């Protein structure tokens, strides 16, 4: 099975060949590296930019204005903060110009902890991202969804922020991408650049197919009846593990992978909460003004009288960063035990 990084690469290749992608660029995105996570190796429109995040986003905006279809990358979301006003401009260009211009661009950036990334390779960004209007925001939790979400992002005529959980970049998928070789070693030989001299290397692309995960459509990963668990990205896997553990203890959790954070699939969440009467939202962003609070607020708006227990958010501790030592990360970013405990608490809460 393709890894999440390979899936992104295959999607970008498909985008170049079939969806009009004109430029894939950012720091170290072009040859020889092809991205620090290898997501852009071997792509024919990939090029290296100056180390200038503002220039990257602004140039993508200009390319989009001029009829191109850029996919730009900020190498780590930790370095995106100095481009917030440019993200605002990308997101408001259509509205402020009364529909005259639109901005068909994709901005991808790795997010989250889980790789011992220390202060500046561990940030989450979804809470800020979903507060920048005019953008759609997606975050896959597996390789096939990464492929399908990227194709949808490329095809969308609006700016789309593709948040890639960096802790999952090397994770292999559980389902084949349509057109992916059956043998993952074959895929490796076809599209992964060799270590060392790559000067003469060319990828041999498999004939991957059009497969879209619609923006705004969640996926129910585990069916259950006692508690609804809403997650996404890296921690989605901890949510399913927790659900499996609790299943053995007689607690039935329904786990929803949002996949799109803006606009998020409210109806799927509401339907599940109306069934279970209980809600837990899980992510690794810091807890104050957290995107999960928005999910809970919308559930309170629409499902208040269906609730049998207070909704709960499990999120990162509200501290300035994720420290390098494991003692910092494990005690500030939700771990499996934290999620299991929260899930049990919500499922068993009584008035």
């Amino acid at each position, binding site marked *: 099975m393709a890894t999440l990084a390979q899936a992104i690469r295959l999607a970008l290749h498909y985008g170049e060949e079939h969806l009009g992608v004109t430029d894939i660029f950012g720091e170290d995105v072009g040859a020889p590296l092809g991205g620090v996570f290898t997501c852009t190796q071997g792509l024919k429109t990939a090029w290296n930019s100056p180390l200038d995040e503002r220039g990257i986003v602004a*140039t993508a905006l*200009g390319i989009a204005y001029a*009829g191109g279809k850029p996919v730009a990358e900020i190498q780590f979301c930790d370095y995106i903060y100095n481009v917030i006003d440019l993200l605002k401009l990308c997101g408001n260009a259509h509205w402020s110009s*009364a529909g005259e211009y639109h901005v068909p661009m994709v901005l991808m950036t790795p997010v989250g902890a889980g790789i011992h990334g220390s202060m500046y390779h561990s940030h989450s960004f979804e809470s800020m991202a979903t507060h920048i209007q005019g953008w759609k925001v997606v975050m896959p939790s597996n390789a096939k969804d990464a492929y399908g979400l990227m194709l949808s992002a490329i095809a969308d005529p609006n700016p789309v922020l593709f948040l890639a959980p960096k802790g999952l970049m090397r994770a292999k998928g559980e389902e084949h991408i349509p057109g992916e070789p059956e043998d993952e070693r074959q895929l490796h030989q076809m599209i992964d650049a060799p270590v060392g001299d790559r000067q003469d290397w060319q990828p041999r692309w498999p004939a991957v197919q059009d497969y879209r995960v619609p923006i705004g459509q969640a996926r129910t990963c585990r069916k259950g009846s006692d508690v609804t668990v809403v997650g996404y990205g890296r921690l989605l896997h901890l949510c399913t593990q927790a659900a499996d553990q609790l299943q053995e203890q007689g607690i039935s959790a329904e786990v929803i992978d949002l996949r799109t954070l803006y606009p998020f699939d409210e109806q799927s969440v509401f339907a599940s909460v109306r069934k279970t009467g209980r809600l837990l939202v899980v992510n690794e962003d810091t807890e104050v003004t957290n995107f999960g609070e928005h999910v809970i607020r919308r559930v309170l708006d629409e499902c208040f009288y269906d609730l049998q227990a207070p909704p709960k958010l499990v999120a990162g501790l509200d501290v300035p960063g994720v420290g390098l030592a494991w003692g910092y990360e494990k005690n500030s970013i939700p771990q499996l035990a934290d999620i299991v405990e929260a899930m049990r608490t919500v499922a068993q809460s009584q008035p």
Partner: protein
Amino acid sequence: MALSGSPELTRWTPPVLDEACKLAIHNLMVKSRACEEALIRMVRTGHGYFWIGSPGEEGFGVPLGMLVHKGHGPAFDYLHLHYRSAPTVLAMGSQPIDLLRQMRSTVTDPYSKGRNFVNHFAIKPWNIVPVTPTIETQYAVAPGTALVQRRHGGVGISIVTGGDAGSAEGDFYSAMNWSTRPDQELPVLMLIAHNGYGISTRAERVQNTRELNRRGDGFGIRNAMVDGNDPIATWNALVEAMDYVRHERKPYILQGNVSRLYGHSSSSGASLLDEPDCLSLYEARLLREGLATAAELKAVWDRWHDALNDALHQVIEEPMPDRQHVLQHVFWDGPAGN
């Protein structure tokens, strides 16, 4: 009225600066000045919330508008303008009534549907990308359109304007750096309208040189400075700069030193200040050279004043945005591609 060529151009020949052209420059300078003064009157009489604009920059902005290779798509010039660009856009052929609409925030405002301050244009058929209230970001965006133009070929360039204060931001540096990557030079014409101030702060207190165009020296960017209060000198400087950018496909920085006749904005009173007036100076020149009589010049003013009065009467009757308009244009659901 933009004196533009055809989309198939492989060489650009500027319009001839003859007597008719010199009189056209005057007409467009008056068009812009009369429009801006009408906008100031509107904000003073309660027909608008806030004014910011360009009186005093007509000598720099009008020749630019007349020299733009106007059209849609990468064969033509892209314009990344700032909010003191009315002379340029009006010289390209826009109608003053649309600025009055934007000042009054009517739903008929074609540039923003009453959403943005006045002088925030967006005109896709002429490649004028949305003007932003930020004073510097346009410099960093221009290399993006220029990149597409480099690939496209032809004579289309990306023109970006800003003020001396905006040039202090890092985006100005980004524009110079991205436009001069080895073997990837971009056809960007960077313009600085130096009016001597950033709101209330005098430039000489916060910039280490008056010659901001010389910032380009470190990047090997050809650059020049011109008296922006002189439209003829500006015309000639722009022709030289455009000829270079269009045909060499490399960046150029041109600084025009201009006046700020009504201060920063309505927030500072928008009162007439004692600075050189490019329009008065130009009219004196036309009289001195015998290209027009005082009566003929006055007739130009009268014509624009009458047109603006008629426009204002029309605009104040036009509808304002309402609840139904708020959610329009958040996302685009048509085909991708500008």
